[in-house]
């Protein structure tokens, strides 16, 4: 940092910057409950005693919540029947493979052309290490797990309006930001500006910590040299013999770093849900749902569209039609019902529950989301750019590029996640036909990997969650006000019916929410059964 810049960075601007950072963190947390650090609260599978012989439970939905409920109730001795709208188990736990066909609302049909071994997860794709519930079932069902990389220091941060649109390595962005902040704070400390808040003894420790954290030199400065190149990488990697000379890289200035806005990209991996270790099922997230389906095969009836749910003081009856062919309505009756149908769909199905329960079901909007899978004929990100898994962040509408986190160095093809967009931006993608979503994402990717992205593209698939026929959105969105007013009513046992799913959890959009919701729901249901 030059002397001129030193002078320019007043205490006021430092505090403003720190305030901005603190504010942005607070804003991130407030913006979406997904960002909150939430413990799963999973204490192992429920310990259910044997119910009265012949007690039956009807489960609506063979997603993660429905299958969790089914496997535990079956094991306890209940007679379980599951109705599922799709022709497969898993629900939003779903992977698309070559040969799959997906028809979205509006009729657009995509025939997935991926090569064998390639896939995309349109829905969830991460299993945080503390999501004990979903990890329990993955391991119980024999689904292999492998590491998911949330943070790849060698992937990119890209801003079309910074550095001439040239992507920067994540490593450089983080090192420069941390380094400059450390230097500023060290300077402030030495100027006695922190005397009011930090004791003299603690200031000594703070300076030592800042040197280590920010890669500062002996003069407490973040400057070109061995320390900083150890963080942000050298120009040329060190090697052996006479061919190797040290080549320290030049850090960007504080002002450049701030104005690039790339510091926005270094927060995500710090959040609880995104901290190492994270896992993914080998062969696609959908392997968990499919394994559940195999385990519960005799209990699941597929292609059932529920059109009415009715309870009396003795039983619950669901009326359904064939979701593919229609035809005459059929009925199935059981003593109890665990309903995991998303609130977006359930709010449209007649069901005699309390007014409070109905109000709770009706108050949950379902969010927009987009994922795009793009098969590339060559793993150019690995072979040319040494990016192995992880994510690149861009300010373009696709938001991210995800690199496949399996088959590294395979020298074969790979499927990129060409977009992962939630919220406001995702509405706009849902309004476009699938081929346009893909075409747009190819343009965005070309800006990050020029000359390679479009040239290597072979085929793709785009899933906009508001067009998914069986959820009408990606997940339930609770405002704090609505949760305070309605959440308990949503989860309460209502006569013989209890609801479960990510929408009935404090981990919305996470599979762990579905597992813990189902675990809690069937525990309460069972208490009612054995207590009755």
């Amino acid at each position: 940092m030059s002397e001129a810049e030193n002078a320019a960075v007043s205490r006021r601007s430092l505090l403003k910057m720190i305030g901005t950072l603190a504010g942005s963190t607070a804003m991130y947390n407030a913006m979406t409950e997904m960002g909150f650090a939430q413990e799963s609260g999973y204490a192992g599978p429920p310990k259910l005693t044997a119910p009265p012989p012949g007690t039956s439970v009807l489960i609506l939905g063979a997603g993660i919540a429905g299958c969790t409920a089914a496997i535990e109730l079956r094991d306890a001795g209940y007679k379980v029947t599951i109705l599922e709208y799709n022709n497969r188990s898993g629900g939003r736990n779903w992977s698309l493979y070559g040969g799959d066909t997906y028809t979205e609302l509006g009729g657009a049909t995509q025939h997935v052309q991926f090569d064998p071994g390639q896939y995309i997860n349109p829905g969830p794709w991460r299993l945080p290490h503390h999501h004990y519930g979903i990890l329990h079932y993955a391991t119980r069902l024999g689904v292999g797990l492998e590491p998911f990389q949330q943070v790849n220091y060698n992937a990119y941060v890209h801003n079309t309006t910074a550095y001439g649109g040239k992507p920067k390595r994540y490593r450089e962005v983080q090192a420069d930001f941390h380094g400059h902040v450390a230097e500023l704070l060290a300077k402030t400390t030495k100027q006695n500006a922190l005397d009011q808040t930090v004791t003299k003894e603690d200031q000594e420790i703070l300076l030592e910590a800042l040197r280590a954290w920010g890669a500062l030199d002996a003069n407490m400065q973040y400057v070109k040299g061995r320390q900083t190149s150890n963080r942000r990488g050298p120009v040329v990697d060190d090697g052996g013999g006479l061919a190797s000379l040290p080549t320290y890289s030049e850090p960007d200035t504080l002002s450049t770093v701030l104005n690039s806005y790339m510091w926005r990209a270094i927060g995500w991996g710090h959040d609880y849900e995104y901290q190492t270790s994270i896992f993914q099922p080998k062969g696609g997230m959908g392997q968990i749902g499919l394994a559940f389906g195999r385990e519960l095969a005799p209990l699941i009836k597929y292609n059932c569209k529920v059109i009415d749910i009715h309870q009396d003081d003795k039983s619950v009856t669901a009326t359904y039609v064939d979701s593919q062919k229609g035809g005459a309505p059929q009925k199935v009756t059981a003593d109890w019902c665990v309903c995991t149908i998303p609130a977006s769909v359930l709010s449209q199905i007649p069901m005699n529950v309390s007014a409070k329960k109905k109000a709770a079901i009706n108050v949950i909007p379902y969010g927009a989301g987009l994922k795009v899978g793009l098969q590339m004929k060559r793993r150019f990100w690995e072979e040319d750019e040494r990016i192995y898994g992880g994510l690149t962040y861009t300010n373009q509408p696709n938001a991210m590029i995800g690199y496949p986190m399996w088959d590294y160095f395979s020298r074969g093809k790979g499927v990129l996640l060409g977009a992962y967009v939630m919220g406001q931006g995702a509405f706009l993608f849902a309004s476009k036909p699938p081929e346009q979503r893909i075409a747009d994402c190819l343009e965005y990717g070309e800006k990050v990997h020029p000359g390679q992205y479009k040239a290597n593209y072979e085929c793709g698939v785009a899933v906009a969650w508001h067009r998914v026929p069986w959820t009408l959105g990606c997940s339930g969105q609770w405002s704090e006000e609505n949760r305070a007013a309605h959440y308990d009513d949503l989860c309460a046992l209502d006569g013989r019916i209890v609801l479960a799913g990510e929408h009935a959890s404090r981990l919305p959009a996470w599979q762990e929410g579905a597992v813990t919701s189902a675990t809690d729901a069937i525990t309460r249901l069972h208490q009612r059964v054995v207590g009755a």
Partner: protein
Amino acid sequence: MRTPLAAAAAIISVAAVAGARADTAQDMGAGAMNRSPPYNFQGGEAVFKNICQGCHMANAQGAVGAGAYPALARNAKLEVAGYPVAVIVHGQKAMPAFGGLLNDQQIADVVNYVRTHFGNNYKDKVTPADVKAQR
């Protein structure tokens, strides 16, 4: 033709069941470089084609899966203009609220557009002031 009182009641009931404020800026959260794209669409047709047709479809016919998106085409519920205004501002059931994403003019424009297209032919116009009154 419904009475003004009935129309007002319909509007109030919609507002009562909605109330979800999932309509503020929805970014990706920590770690995202991109910020929510501005919803600066001009005119009702542009609003419809960029946002509404994502669910209600390009021909406004809606769609049916496990649940359904209602058709806006030839929809008698659009007769009382305050009804679609309330639904857009506050959301309804699974439909997110757009009151925080679209301004009064945009909501008035898209309501006027839908009420005069897709087989709808309602002559009275919604003004931005009408939208503002429902916020």
